[in-house]
């Protein structure tokens, strides 16, 4: 190993160290920004080192330089523009698109490697990782694009199935894996193209039947896939930096997938095989019947204004209505009157892990007020008013009983509060498709309105009635 090789390898180790430290610093909101900066520094170091390597190799043609620089500038420009302009509600789509391009780039690295070596015969150890990289990268690419399309509303968010969709999915998997095994023995560019197409088809048919409510799991899973694909690309080109970075992302995606699946009380297999209400929809379990009590803005405002402790339970409905600023304004007003306000955040409130926290942070809510489920649940019994906004299944007490669609799902113990106000447009069902027993609880009042207008109305009512 020459001195140059030594130095570049050590610089890659330094870059990998920055990635680990950067992720470590994300263990608290106070240090997270520094973590991102450390991670960015590691990336700049890694790219600069690679640039030095490329220059040192001296084999890049003029066209090669133009192609590389033009590609990087174009991609970087698009990424920068998207990152600067994206609405916080649309972050899941953007992350999904970044998963897609990351997985796509990893697959392209392997495809290039394979095509180049196919003529001269490929070493077996490299071929296995090359094929894995192509397969995982292509599945991630098409799957993430479908996921982003669903999140953006370009593709119907409901589970989409068509006759033979399951069979198509299985066929794509068989062709991809079978073709991959064939390729290891017999290099062939034609078969490579076939398995790429099969992997792309698998990604599409895997994500299409998954419902909107399962998106937090799907995004996490695709994130783990991208990481694995990048690690495989590291095997292909013999780069430890890629292997380490890919493994870190794979671990992160894996942990988040598990956390999200647990929070929805579903196995990962169950989610991939089909969303809620796709096949085995059981007859709605009869909850304890009861009358629904509705409430007007003035009464709700008085309850909130004279409470000592209010817990706000935001759900996706809040994000969909883009009402995070209105809820923050109401909370600030209540706090001025000495009311203790906190937010109960269910792990799957939003469209990706932790999404609701970002939306509320955007609305200037201090993060110490954002409480995780385990932290807030013991506080509900001494809560005067629980204000549920656009959250449904995650508050359904039926989850504590066996025998229904939400059984066993971890829920926020909203029904333990002294009184409950639910802001909701109608009595429509959540994704689980069953009645929410919370709504017929005698302690509950329903405020039927769109989240944004309801919150604006409540804020105005608090101001005029007691301000």
């Amino acid at each position, binding site marked *: 190993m020459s001195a140059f090789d030594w130095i570049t390898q050590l610089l890659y180790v330094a870059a990998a160290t920055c990635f680990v430290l950067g992720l470590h610093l994300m263990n608290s909101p106070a240090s997270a920004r520094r973590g991102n900066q450390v991670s960015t520094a590691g990336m700049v170091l890694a790219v600069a080192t690679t640039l030095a390597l490329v220059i040192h190799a001296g084999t890049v043609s003029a066209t090669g330089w133009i192609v590389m620089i033009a590609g990087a500038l174009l*991609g970087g420009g698009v990424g920068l523009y998207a990152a600067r302009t994206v609405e916080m509600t649309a972050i899941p789509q953007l992350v999904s698109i970044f998963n897609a391009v990351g997985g796509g780039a990893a697959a*392209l690295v392997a495809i290039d490697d394979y095509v180049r070596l196919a003529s001269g015969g490929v070493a077996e150890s490299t071929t296995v990782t090359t094929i894995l990289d192509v397969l995982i990268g292509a599945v991630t690419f098409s799957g993430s694009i479908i996921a982003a399309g669903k999140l953006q509303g370009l593709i119907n968010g409901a589970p989409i199935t068509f006759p033979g969709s399951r069979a198509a999915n299985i066929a794509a998997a068989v062709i991809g894996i079978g073709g991959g095994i064939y390729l290891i023995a017999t290099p062939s560019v034609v078969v490579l193209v076939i398995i790429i197409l099969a992997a792309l088809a698998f990604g599409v048919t895997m994500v299409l039947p998954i419902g909107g409510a399962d998106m937090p799991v799907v995004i996490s899973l695709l994130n783990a896939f991208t990481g694995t694909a990048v690690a495989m690309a590291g095997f292909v080109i013999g780069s430890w930096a890629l292997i380490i970075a890919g493994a870190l992302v794979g671990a992160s995606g894996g942990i988040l997938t598990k956390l999200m699946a647990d929070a929805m009380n579903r196995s990962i297999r169950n989610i991939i095989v089909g969303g809620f209400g796709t096949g085995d929809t059981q007859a709605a379990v009869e909850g304890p019947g009861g009358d629904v009590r509705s409430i007007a803005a003035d009464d709700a405002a008085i309850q909130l204004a004279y409470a*000592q402790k209010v817990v706000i339970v935001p759900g996706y409905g809040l994000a969909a209505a883009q009402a995070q600023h209105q809820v923050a304004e109401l909370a600030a007003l209540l706090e001025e009157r000495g009311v203790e306000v906190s937010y109960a955040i269910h792990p799957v409130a939003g469209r990706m892990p932790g999404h609701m926290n970002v939306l509320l942070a955007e609305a200037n809510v201090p*993060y110490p007020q954002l409480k995780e489920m385990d932290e807030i649940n013991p506080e509900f019994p001494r809560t005067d008013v629980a204000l549920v906004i656009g959250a449904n299944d995650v508050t359904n007490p039926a989850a504590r009983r066996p025998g229904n669609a939400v059984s066993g799902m971890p829920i926020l113990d909203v029904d333990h509060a002294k009184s409950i106000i639910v802001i909701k447009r109608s009595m429509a069902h959540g994704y689980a498709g069953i009645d929410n027993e919370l709504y017929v609880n005698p302690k509950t009042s329903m405020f039927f309105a769109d989240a944004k207008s309801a919150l604006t109305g409540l804020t105005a009512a608090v101001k005029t009635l007691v301000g």
Partner: protein
Amino acid sequence: MTTELLTDITIFVLALLVGFEVISKVPATLHTPLMSAANSIHGIVLAGAMLIAVTANNALGYILAFVAAAFAAMNVVGGYVVTGRMLKMFHRARTPVPAGNSPAAVSGNGQAPAGSAPARGQGGQA
């Protein structure tokens, strides 16, 4: 099985374990920025895309290098910028907002130095 492959596998497994250890300590509040940060880290595939350009000598090679470089660069730049944008919004205390409390004025400004403001929401319980 070559020694190189064995080394690569060892590094992969150890990095995976380090990842599990470090990431399980990230609070749920930060899961979205975490995923976005992880997203930008896998943009390191840009290094791989650059190495494609080294050996590219025909049209197919150039096309692959171009697309891979564009994809990876989009991943890296976009990932870090959007993560930074999100993390900038997390404050320990409500930052002073210009009079009128207009929601439009909230986004993107005010960077309270973390930890400098007193924690809120403690009183009123006793």
